[in-house]
């Protein structure tokens, strides 16, 4: 934590941490505590009068079936995104770990979607699946489907899941590949001498040894799906049609910033904050228990 050898006491260290701490207080800690405080208030429609109502916003929130719909929707969305992008990344990483020729080239072509902004990713997928013009929608229609994500909620959900998973494959691929390359070759060789073929080696040696990476990625993917997909949803569906793609983060934004229900939105923020805290704690516990190959 601290170096054994360090500089003596002076004003300097305070000056050094000052910018970071100032920003942390002004833009993080203060607003977060404001959110906590506002979640206990009710404000009238004109913002003229505020009333302290204790946990009324929370009890309203937890009595609201629509809110729980959003919670389930978010859970479904996140697990689908995590499953889709992790399984395809695992497959690709497994293959890339096998090939020697061109591994670097493959990697280059697989990692770039990471750099695409969620909104732009949304735009690309929206364009391909646009019900009137989209090239993929054209093929779907040709096959007899009447694809239209603007009116069909399930189709809208599928589209944002695909777009979100697509963007996240790169990240998962890199970590899976790094995890696989960290497994000592001698282990794989020992298994081969024991007579295990490539598929068996993957499921009995490589995959179990990857479990810390898999767990870590699972947490990261959930965080990603919860928070970083806002842009995709905002660009593609705006939470619609009929709230079919409204996830928690979108609802906080929509209720608070558009609907101006400050107290309710703040209570939702606090719930989200709790989720982040739990995920962060899990993530840090993972690091402590990280398996050494």
């Amino acid at each position, binding site marked *: 934590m*601290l*170096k054994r050898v*360090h500089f003596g*006491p002076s004003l*300097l*260290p*305070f000056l*050094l*941490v000052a*910018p*970071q*701490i100032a920003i942390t*207080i002004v*833009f*993080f*800690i203060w*607003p977060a505590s*404001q*959110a906590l405080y*506002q979640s206990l208030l009710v404000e009238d429609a004109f913002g003229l009068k505020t009333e302290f109502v204790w946990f009324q916003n929370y009890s309203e929130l937890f009595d609201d079936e629509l809110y729980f719909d959003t919670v389930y929707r978010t859970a479904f969305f996140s697990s689908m995104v995590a499953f889709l992008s992790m399984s395809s990344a695992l*497959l690709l990483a497994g293959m890339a770990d*096998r*090939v020697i020729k061109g591994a670097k080239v493959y990697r280059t*072509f*697989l*990692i*770039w*979607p990471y*750099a*695409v902004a*969620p*909104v*732009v990713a*949304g*735009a*690309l997928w929206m*364009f*391909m699946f646009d019900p009137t*013009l989209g*090239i993929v929608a*054209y093929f779907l229609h040709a096959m007899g489907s009447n694809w239209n994500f603007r009116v069909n909620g399930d189709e809208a959900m599928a589209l944002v899941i695909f777009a979100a998973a*697509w963007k996240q*494959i790169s990240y998962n691929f*890199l*970590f899976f590949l*790094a995890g696989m390359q960290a497994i000592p070759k001698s282990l794989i060789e020992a298994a081969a001498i024991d007579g295990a073929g*490539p598929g068996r080696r993957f499921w009995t040696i490589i995959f179990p040894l990857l479990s810390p990476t898999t767990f*870590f990625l699972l947490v990261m993917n959930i965080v990603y799906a919860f928070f970083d997909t806002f*842009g995709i949803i*905002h*660009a593609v569906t705006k939470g619609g049609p009929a709230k079919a793609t409204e996830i928690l*983060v979108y609802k*906080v*934004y929509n209720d608070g*910033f558009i609907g101006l229900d400050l107290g309710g*939105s703040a209570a939702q923020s*606090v719930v*989200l*904050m709790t989720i*982040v805290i739990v995920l962060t704690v899990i993530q840090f516990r993972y690091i402590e228990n990280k398996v050494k190959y």
Partner: protein
Amino acid sequence: MIENRPFVTFVSHVVLILGIVIIAFPIWVTFVAASHDAVRMTQVPLPLLPGGHFFENLVSALTKGVGNAREQSVGLMLMNSLIMALMIAVGKIAISLLSAFAIVYFRFPFRMMFFWMIFITLMLPVEVRIIPTFQVVANLGMLNNYWGLSIPLIASATATFMFRQVFLTIPDELLEAARIDGAGPMRFFKDILLPMSRTNIAALFVILFIYGWNQYLWPLLITTDKSMYTIVMGIKSMLEAAEESPEWHLIMMSSLLALLPPVMVVVFMQSLFVKGLTETEK
């Protein structure tokens, strides 16, 4: 590989190539759309091969703007994005370097408290404090300017932790040797720590540049003035306009321009990118 099984290797290559094709398909479609004219882009089915209007569309987007954001050219939005991304990346690196230096190399009162305050920022993404943060920024008069776009985002626990990790691996004897050579704290920081952390700084810069460039919710909250629009926001407003008058050739050209800089950074600084990604997650 362990044993020679040409068939398995062949299958691996096929799967990888298929994966690449599927992953790259959206961008191919984008590129194709950006190379046709407005007329062709209203005829179903849309083309799958590039047309001849790429440069025409490029010039049009860069100088004239698209849809709702017509009054704002894509060129200007790119410039806004670039400025914001650079300010965020440089700002985060600068303040994280300084605070990691203080926390690792100085013993001072409240050191641990500061450390935990920085740690807490990990648990408070913009998404969970949208409105109060907006209020703070509004009160400080930072709406619609570059400061408001960047400063609230430059506190960074991950970057601070990464530099802390890097500094902890630098042998103590180097500090001692520097002290015998007469270097004070800031001189040591500038002459020894900074040069020794330069690959980490570069790796982090790559990650943070992408992070900054791709910011969306934050600029959406605090910019109302179209002259402050970033390219990512611009795309969003073009999509809204597309529902009435689809100008997909220009929207896709703009999307291409929006994704090109960060993608180029990833592709051409691949090893730094991988290093940055894996190290900030430790």
